[in-house]
């Protein structure tokens, strides 16, 4: 069944995650439903001379258990997270791999990252400048560059069509997913892997973030009166996107449909978001989905718990949704998995897809005392059963880079 305008439809036939709530969609979703918070005292690097000592670290990732490819074993953690999440998505989709010769060039792989192999870079600079090693490890460059994850995954599955990394800070994953979606719609490819990974929790990066003064030493409390900043986290969120007829023909399990995608830039400020950019992106996504605001049952908010984002996002939602803003359930799952930076949009897309699949809205954890100016239904503390047909996922990144995805149920 194609849309009335003859447009190809794009469905999700697999997804995978690595998150501070655990590795794998099942653990992740159970954690969200239970309102668990994956933000803890940092364990993976020393924090003595830092004043930010909390983060959302992935607690259970073991390359030996979670990866099959030898080359990924030698890669930066960001690529490893991507590889693991991609493996879960591909397995779930029951796609036969390696991709057949007939289809290889009609498949894509766009896996982005905010900073790629930053931790490899930090280690390598330490070796060079501090310890005067005669050379860096030969794989250093390959581990560090932001295209590695995509390349690794393409090699793993024999994807020979458009393959590259994509960068847009906290909107990276959403833009990557949208990018593959557009390629499928255009007929350039029939399916593809889209999403992002981030593994930038290290001492140097924390120092750099501290200097921006936007992190909270206490926790991530979106839409709260006393919210005082965001908390860094890591992980990967990957979708397998597929053209609908292609998926139907091979009897693939269909989890959801990607109905629409909106992308805008604020063209305003490097850190402070603007209401215009955010609302235009939501409107664009709705128009692309051919839906109206009142059709949206759930919004997975960007909700970073900074003073500026949560207020700006509330105002933008009100502007776009009008009266319908009072009927939509909203939550920021960052309250539970932290701010996964480049990977955030991918992890949050999976949360939106699960919400549709299970008719359940995950909560905003820690929302005991809402900001009176953030007075929409942010699903405080406790998730709820609600029929979720259409879900929107917002990402509003530094530099005013906005990406909004709208998901719907599997086509009838």
């Amino acid at each position, binding site marked *: 069944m194609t849309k009335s305008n003859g447009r190809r439809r794009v469905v999700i036939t697999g997804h995978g995650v690595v998150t501070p709530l655990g590795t794998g969609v099942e653990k992740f979703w159970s954690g969200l439903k239970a309102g668990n918070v994956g933000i803890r005292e940092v364990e993976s690097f020393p924090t003595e001379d830092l*004043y930010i000592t909390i983060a959302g670290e992935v607690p259970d990732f073991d390359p030996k258990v979670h990866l099959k490819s030898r080359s990924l074993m030698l890669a930066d953690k960001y690529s490893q997270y991507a590889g693991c999440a991609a493996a879960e998505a591909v397995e779930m989709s029951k796609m036969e791999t390696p991709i057949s010769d007939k289809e290889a060039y009609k498949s894509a792989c766009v896996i982005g990252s905010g900073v790629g192999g930053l931790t490899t870079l930090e280690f390598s600079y330490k070796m060079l400048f501090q310890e005067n090693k005669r050379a860096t490890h030969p794989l250093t460059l390959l581990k560090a560059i932001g295209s590695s994850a995509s390349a690794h995954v393409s090699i793993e599955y024999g994807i020979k069509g458009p393959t590259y990394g994509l960068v847009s800070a906290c909107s990276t994953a959403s833009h990557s997913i949208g990018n593959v979606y557009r390629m499928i719609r255009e007929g350039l490819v029939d399916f593809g892997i889209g999403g992002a990974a981030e593994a930038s929790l290290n001492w140097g990066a924390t120092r750099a973030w501290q*200097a*921006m*003064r*936007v*992190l*909270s030493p206490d926790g991530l409390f979106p839409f709260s009166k006393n*919210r*005082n*900043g965001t908390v860094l986290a890591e992980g990967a969120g990957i979708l397998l996107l597929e053209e609908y007829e292609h998926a139907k023909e091979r009897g693939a399990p269909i989890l959801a449909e990607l109905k629409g995608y909106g992308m805008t830039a604020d063209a305003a*400020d*490097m*850190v*402070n978001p603007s209401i215009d950019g955010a609302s235009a992106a939501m409107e664009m996504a709705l128009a692309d989905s051919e839906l109206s605001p009142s059709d949206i049952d759930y919004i997975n908010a960007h909700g970073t718990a*900074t*003073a*500026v984002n949560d207020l700006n996002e509330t105002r933008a939602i009100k502007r776009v949704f009008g009266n319908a803003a009072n009927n939509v359930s909203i939550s920021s799952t960052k309250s539970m998995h932290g701010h996964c930076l480049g990977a955030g949009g991918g992890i949050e897309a999976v949360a939106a897809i699960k919400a549709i699949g299970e008719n359940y809205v995950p909560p905003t954890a820690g929302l005991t005392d809402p900001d009176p100016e953030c007075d929409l239904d942010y699903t405080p503390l406790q998730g709820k059963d609600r029929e979720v047909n259409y879900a929107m996922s917002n990402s509003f990144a530094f530099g005013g880079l906005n990406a909004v995805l709208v998901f719907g149920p599997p086509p009838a």
Partner: protein
Amino acid sequence: MDDVADKIIEILRKNMKDPSKTVTLDTPLSELEIESLDLAVIVFDIEDTFGIEIPYNANEEVEAFATVGSVVDRVKSIMAETKSSGAAA
């Protein structure tokens, strides 16, 4: 005005949209057209110049940054604390 105030005003000027504006101790920072990231840069410059650490969170209202004079006072009190505790900045 004293040396500390002079240095701070110089740092502010470097980061102002219009450096030729008059700046006194009573001038509110908001009048200097300094936005969040500029403030982080100013604080960084001040920390570097005086060898101190100024704790602040951009998500919270910070009284210490209401006027130029309040910034000078805050810097002076941190310098005194740092000196008296003998801690390296």
